């Protein structure tokens, strides 16, 4: 596929998204598209992306912004047909992080990313039937990838002995 065709695919996709939804978008230097959308429209936009040929849900990620009390969710999607990368972003409330699951759209490939985010950030995906712990065993603390979880303090408390002179170095920092 030539560069011109890629640009054409990108242009028509952006036009369609702008026409249908209330979004903000930008095209990065590397040709990837970044679309920001309100939480209420998120699933509709994702479903629209899937229908536009973004068959591959490459990853779903969350970024924690404790100061504004939000999580920013990013859905990284790839179209095998148009060879385009689009990232759909949305912000959700950090104190009650609930969002609809993208499982109905991408199936198991979205399911596993959501399960991971549930464990590491505490985001609840409504409609995902299996949000069982994935990596952590018998973990009772807060979701560990949140910014306010200080793993250094946690490790010091859990695994080091302040009275042991060989481990003093871990307490000085």
């Amino acid at each position, binding site marked *: 596929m030539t560069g011109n065709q890629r640009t054409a695919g990108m242009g028509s996709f952006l036009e369609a998204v702008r026409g249908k939804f209330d979004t903000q978008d930008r095209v990065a230097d590397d040709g990837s598209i970044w679309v920001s959308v309100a939480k209420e429209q998120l699933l509709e936009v994702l479903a629209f992306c899937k229908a536009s040929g973004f068959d591959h849900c490459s990853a779903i990620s969350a970024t924690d912004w404790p100061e504004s009390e939000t999580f920013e969710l990013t859905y990284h999607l790839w179209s*095998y047909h148009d060879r385009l990368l689009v990232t759909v972003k949305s912000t959700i409330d950090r104190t009650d992080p609930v969002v609809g699951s993208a499982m109905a759209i991408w199936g198991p490939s979205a399911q596993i990313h959501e399960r991971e985010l549930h464990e590491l950030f505490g985001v609840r995906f409504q409609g995902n039937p299996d949000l069982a712990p994935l990596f952590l065993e018998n973990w009772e603390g807060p979701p560990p990838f949140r910014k306010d979880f200080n793993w250094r303090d946690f490790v010091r408390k859990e695994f080091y002995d302040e009275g042991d002179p060989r481990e003093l170095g871990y307490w000085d920092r």
Partner: protein
Amino acid sequence: MTKEIPVNWATGTDSVVSKCSEEGGYDLYFGPVHPGSGNFGVRLSVCGEQVIAARADPGYLHRGFEKLMEYRTPLQNAVLSDRLCILESLNWNLVHAEAVDRLQGTEIPDRAKYLRVIMAELSRIQSHIIWYGVLSKALGFDTGFKLAFTYRDYVLDVFEFITGGRVYPAGYICPGGVRRDFPDGTKKRIEELLEKLERMISEFESYDTSTICARTRGIGVLTLEDAIRLGATGPVLRGSGLRADVRRDAPYEVYDAFDFEIPVREEGDAFARLTIRRIEVEQSINILRQALRQLPAEKLPPVKPKVVNKIPEGEVYVRNEIARGEAAIYMRGVGESHPYRCKVRGPDLLHMIPVLEHLLVGAEVADVPAIYWSLNVCPADMDR
């Protein structure tokens, strides 16, 4: 006796489950200490010889890289990125370095791009060789195992010569280029290595009619529709019939300067995935020869640590094709010396959980290792 049998929601096996509740089934653990399973387990519910449900049990290698990277500078993270997958550390070095380079807007010298590609392709070959060895071992084909690990050592010798490390290159591919240029005589050593590897491929081919073929043909068939639905990438996806490769679809570094083939098979079985990886080794040799020919002559100065090395405000999502499939990093910078967020997307989270669980349902117990290793799994990049 009633026993709870986990129902695999992804594949929906209700009918087989009810059949087995009448006949009586049992749970079988494959891993986490099964020889060759890696640090990963999968719980199989078995009815006679047939697997009726599979539940992956990851987490044995979870080290929290994404969080660790939020506390470290790019140069420290370059070293950390080695550990994302033990079997192909240089490829992960490259993904990380590209993410930082793009955020910082660093222009990489042409020669450094070629060196990066050379190291990434050697790493791909090395990874495919280990996989051939471990698959052979899992199938009881010890000749293949010994052959593969012998040849892998030749590649590691070259890694040691260039980077100082055999398995972990200590962030050789780092933001800004590569740590230091190739030592004198590297080109000749790589050319000699490629000749050896060509011999290796013909030896591998000569075994295609033996155990390895009998145990993989028609086993673990993944249809293209399922492959896309379950998020398969790389050789697994190409083994099911889709010609998709990040090196060609969204070329990075200097991949658009090379002429290479992307092997595809329609069958979707373990043997198709095996054939694809072997052809990929051939193609990597092809790319390496072209890269060595085109390599700009002028030597590079070593990359020095910067006094102020901040990651500017911004975000990128960088995708690369590594031996196992699509590797990606989402990096978010806020103008600090550390990344604010670094999401690592490895191919194996998808291959080892949804794809593996799907393929194991309905398989014979004896085929489990063949299916498992035909996916070329790496628990390290799944757990992160």
